[in-house]
């Protein structure tokens, strides 16, 4: 299908959905309104809310807070995941000892940690960062662990025959392999960093997109909730585009067909 045609169809989906939403929440059908505006608001009010946020500039502060929390969660969680993943993969005994506890920690729904983090770190950004870290860490950790474990035996034998010392093996073989697995999970881990930040904000904070949505919900301002969701979706898409750009640069060596998620 031609690119222009595809774009047209994609836009059409948006237009039809918006029109349906508007009509069903504004005009009575068979005597009554199908989607009560109290619960579903309508596109005009939502758009007005978004415009007013950006016009007054209040949204920037919230976006900024969420962004900072996501970045911190991603960076700290990734560094921790890489270090521990590497360590466990090279020290099978340590990995075996900690295995049940890692599984247990990963099985725990992370949302239940939010209250305890709020208790420990207060209502500021660090309780949200901590929540994001617990999500990002495990994704990166498992991928790096796998990446180090699954280095091709032939490549490894070749590296040794080429005279690599243990340190050179780390640098030229294990490290790139682990990083490639980490980068292949980049979309997921960045996404989870945002989830951690927003959920944390939603459960107790003074700023951020999650806070905005939670505030609107508290006063039954459905237009505000929808507006917050749209801004959040756009925010995630922008981040995802940036991640794709970074990934293209870092993974040029990998064949396009072989993408892992």
């Amino acid at each position, binding site marked *: 299908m031609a690119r222009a045609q595809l774009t047209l169809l994609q836009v059409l989906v948006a237009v039809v959905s918006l029109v349906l939403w508007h009509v069903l929440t504004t005009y009575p059908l068979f005597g009554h309104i199908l989607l009560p505006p109290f619960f579903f608001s309508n596109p005009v009010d939502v758009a007005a809310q978004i415009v007013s946020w950006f016009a007054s500039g209040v949204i920037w502060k919230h976006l900024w807070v969420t962004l900072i929390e996501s970045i911190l969660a991603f960076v700290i969680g990734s560094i921790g995941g890489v270090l521990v993943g590497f360590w466990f993969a090279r020290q099978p005994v340590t990995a075996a000892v900690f295995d049940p506890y890692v599984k247990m920690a990963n099985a725990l729904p992370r949302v239940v940690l939010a209250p305890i983090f709020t208790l420990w770190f207060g209502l500021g950004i660090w309780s949200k960062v901590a929540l994001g870290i617990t999500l990002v860490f495990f994704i990166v950790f498992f991928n790096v662990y796998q990446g180090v474990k699954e280095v*091709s035996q*032939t*490549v490894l*034998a*070749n*590296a*040794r*025959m*080429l*005279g*690599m*010392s243990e340190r*050179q093996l780390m640098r*030229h*073989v294990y490290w*790139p*392999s682990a990083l*490639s697995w980490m980068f292949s999970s980049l979309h997921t881990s960045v996404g989870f960093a945002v989830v951690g930040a927003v959920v944390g904000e939603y459960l107790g904070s003074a700023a951020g997109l999650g806070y905005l949505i939670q505030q609107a919900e508290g006063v039954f301002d459905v237009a505000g909730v929808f507006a917050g969701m749209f801004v959040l979706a756009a925010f995630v898409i922008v981040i995802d585009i940036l991640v794709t750009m970074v990934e293209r640069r870092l993974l*040029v*060596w*990998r*064949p396009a067909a072989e993408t892992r998620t």
Partner: protein
Amino acid sequence: MTELAQRNSAVSLAGVDVSFRLAGGGIFTAVKNASLAVADGEFVAIVGPTGCGKSTLLNIAAGLLAPAAGTVDIFGSALASLNRQAGYLFQADALFPWKTALENVAIGLETAGIPSPEARARAKEWLSRVGLGAFGDRYPHMLSGGQRKRVGLAQVLIRDPKILLMDEPFGPLDAQTRQIMGNLLLDLWSADRKAVLFVTHDLEEAIALSDRVVIMSAGPAARIIGDWRVPLPRPRDISEVKLDRAFHDLHRDIWHMLKAEVVKGYAQAEAV
């Protein structure tokens, strides 16, 4: 084997057994009592049916695997760990996928402590020697199977090993590319005549390339059952040498013995 022969050999295996511990607790003997000497500058091919332990023998010579019994001597001294004098060209893709062709070739020098700019300059030279001068910035996945083998060859040869171990290096390539690669190998080899141990299941390839062809029996407990000298003159061109009468005679003689082993190999594979 005499003491003297052992001292003059680049690679000398004497009474080598190779066995693996099975998951069930038993012991599987892959190779039994193998003795083989490769003189310095000699090109020896090992031919045998699939699964006879040819590659295992190569891994022994490389020091990647330790024999269960017997001795391995490299230029007269016992091999204790990795064979530092050998270069190994693997059957499977062994290039570093995250390095460009140039980086892949240069890495063998860099690990030896040669500064990066010099290593790269020499890698560039080697890439053009294997006909890939314009492909230095490609990653392995952007190269064809034959091109990857060329990079692999340059990667091994740039370190100037005294012994070259090759494990069915041209196995996955198509017939034409194999011939071209074979000629390239002979060209490069004739420049400084390293000792070569070349494993293949292709008897024609073995005769065309080597000075001696060694035949292994079907596994398990594979043994060396034949050792032929190849009387063909050098320099050779692989496609031409195959038309030679001496080539055909030798091929017929060796094949006579090999065929029985191949059939045995299949029967054993089916029985498992």
